[in-house]
């Protein structure tokens, strides 16, 4: 008896001295997102999704992930500082985000220079991955790019809304807004439409009365407003107050529960292009949506879904590479093919951009409603 007890005690002691499972190597990954500032719902969604993805990965993943989250406040300088710190001080192996193009573009330069892989879920301006004809090898995105999105919106306006005239109101201080406006204009004019107003405003503007009165001269059938939800809501209200009747159209920047909250009646009934719809009938998507709903109390928006995909992509590549060496992870990332994500099947093209479909959503009081899918 005593000897069995003795062996038992030794065994237990050994168990504590030599852990049964081999400790996983610790690897750090960073998220740069606008947790505060004018698009904070984007940041909140992506943070939730980021952490959810890491949790899901940790069940089967080879590495132990330490998440580091930095707030860029939707400001390019903040984002650049955060990136530099995450890379050189915290030594992350990869970066998810930033979410908005205006922050993602300078951060992508920093990531590229420091040879750290960066996957943004949501920044859509082409300059994030390719600038001045030079491809940034370390930068990828899990979403489509704005030349595609702009043309989707323009084609919807021409074919579905049967519009012959359109006006564009965009934020000149924002690469996303400016770029999307240009792409919309190009496709709309190709479709025999006429752009009757092309007005810009600045980030801090609140009074659009002069611009609205100006475009009202031509009574456009469609008004394209490619900006983020809080600005769009404000502009929409002023447009309706002045009695303009045109249909409002926008891009993925509209995707936020705050859009209807701030915009009210003015924004309901209008349309925007987006990356995915929560009504998507797909096993992976449904599982994600359910889990997100139960954890955070609401349906995930495209920011959450895309960040989730981006995170899973980079962590998956980490596992496949078998090492946290950025060069090796890069090789796996660049070869990504047919990744089954929440937002669809993702393959990176030669620019690191994802070739994906877009959806058209209609703004309703309870949330965006699915209208159509457009394939590239």
């Amino acid at each position, binding site marked *: 008896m005593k000897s069995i007890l003795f062996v038992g005690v030794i065994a237990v002691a050994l168990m504590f001295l030599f852990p049964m499972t081999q400790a996983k190597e610790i690897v750090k990954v960073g998220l740069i997102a606008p947790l505060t500032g004018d698009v904070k719902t984007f940041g909140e969604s992506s943070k939730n999704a980021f952490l959810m993805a890491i949790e899901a990965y940790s069940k089967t993943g080879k590495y132990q992930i330490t998440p580091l989250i930095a707030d860029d406040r939707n*400001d390019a300088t903040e984002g650049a500082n955060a990136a530099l710190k995450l890379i*050189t001080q915290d030594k992350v192996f990869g970066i998810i985000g930033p979410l908005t193009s205006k922050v993602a573009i300078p951060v992508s330069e920093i990531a590229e220079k420091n040879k750290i892989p960066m996957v943004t879920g949501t920044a859509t301006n082409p300059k994030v991955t390719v600038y*001045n004809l030079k491809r940034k090898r370390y930068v990828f995105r899990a979403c489509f790019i704005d030349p595609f999105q702009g043309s989707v919106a323009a084609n919807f306006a021409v074919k579905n809304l049967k519009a012959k005239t359109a006006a564009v109101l965009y934020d*000149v*201080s924002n690469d996303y807004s400016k770029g999307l406006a240009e792409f919309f204009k190009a496709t709309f004019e190709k479709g025999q439409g006429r752009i009757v107003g092309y007005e810009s405003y600045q980030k801090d503007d609140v009074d659009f009365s002069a611009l609205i009165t100006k475009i009202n001269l031509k009574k456009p059938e469609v008004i394209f407003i490619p900006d983020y939800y809080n600005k769009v809501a404000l502009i929409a209200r002023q447009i309706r107050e002045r009695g303009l009747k045109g249909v409002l159209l926008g891009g993925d920047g509209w995707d936020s529960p705050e859009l209807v909250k701030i915009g009210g009646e003015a924004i309901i009934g209008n349309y925007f292009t987006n990356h995915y719809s929560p009504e998507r009938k797909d096993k992976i998507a449904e599982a994600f949506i359910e889990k997100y709903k139960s954890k955070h109390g609401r349906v995930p928006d495209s920011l959450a879904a895309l960040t989730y995909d981006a995170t899973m992509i980079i962590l998956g590549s980490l596992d496949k590479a078998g090492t946290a060496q950025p060069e090796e992870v890069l090789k796996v990332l660049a070869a990504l093919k047919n990744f089954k994500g929440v937002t669809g099947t993702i393959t990176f093209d030669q620019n690191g951009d994802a070739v994906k479909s877009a959806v058209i959503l209609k703004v309703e009081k309870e949330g965006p409603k699915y209208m159509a899918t457009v394939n590239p």
Partner: protein
Amino acid sequence: MNFLVETKRFLLCSVAVYLLFKFFFLFGLFSEYIQQIIILSFIVILTSLGLNVIYGYTGQFSLGHAGFYGIGAYTAAYLGALFKVEGVWAFLPILLSGGLAAGLLGYLVGVPILRLKDDFLAIATLGFGILIRVLLDNSDQLSEFLGGSRGVIGIPKIVNLEIAFWAAVFLILITRNLIFSRYGLFWQCIKDDELAATTFGIDTAGMKLTAFTYGCFLAGMGGALYAYLYSFLHPSNFDFLKSIDFLIIVIVGGMGSITGTIYAGLLWVAVIEGLRLALPASLLELRWVFIPILLILVMMWRPYGLLSRSESRFLGLGN
């Protein structure tokens, strides 16, 4: 030669400090992030020194200093891209061009506005600073590279410890010599009592303009260094809030004290950037709650700054 003898102490100190930093940098004791912060502090000291000459010594209240900093940065970035500058030696004329552009602009602006008094000069410089900000926001009309309100990316990172440190030391020396020369004497006379200075036959308008131009020149040099350190410029970096940063350094360090500016500049960058590292993100915004309180308290108790008018004998900057 007299000058070298007088400033021997300062030069020795500089070499010592430089070697110290170089040692730390070489042996990787600081991450690249911290290295950048340290180099930034030299740039900030240089720019604040410019404001000190304008305001601390000559008494002209300028709230638009960051605008000239920005002009230097953008000019240097633009010319560098135009001439495809990559290396250190090609960079030096670019650096100078940043300073000259800012200095020239300072001169042109100074001619009409420097005759305004205190508050009105403050408003005029504030307005001009904002005007420059608007110019930078619309810079893409001038050249797509300048990016307008989206900012400038892709500037090669040329500035390192050597360039920033020795440029700062060189310009501090020149400033010191100006201060202890006839110019500095006249500037302080103007600050003390402009009317009396005129009766002494001092060309107050000319002296004020010289101080202003030189101060803007220093700001432009700082800006050019900044551009080639951070590789990324955005108009929002050169707004009123940035002008306040420089002002705080000048005031806290002591108006009319080069040493004070040096210490305050180091302290300021250390506090701002150090807190960014030390504090978790949620508390970070508290920085900007305490800094104005500090500023108000300094105004109430030591309105002329903490180290006013005394130069450090240790650093060898005194007469």
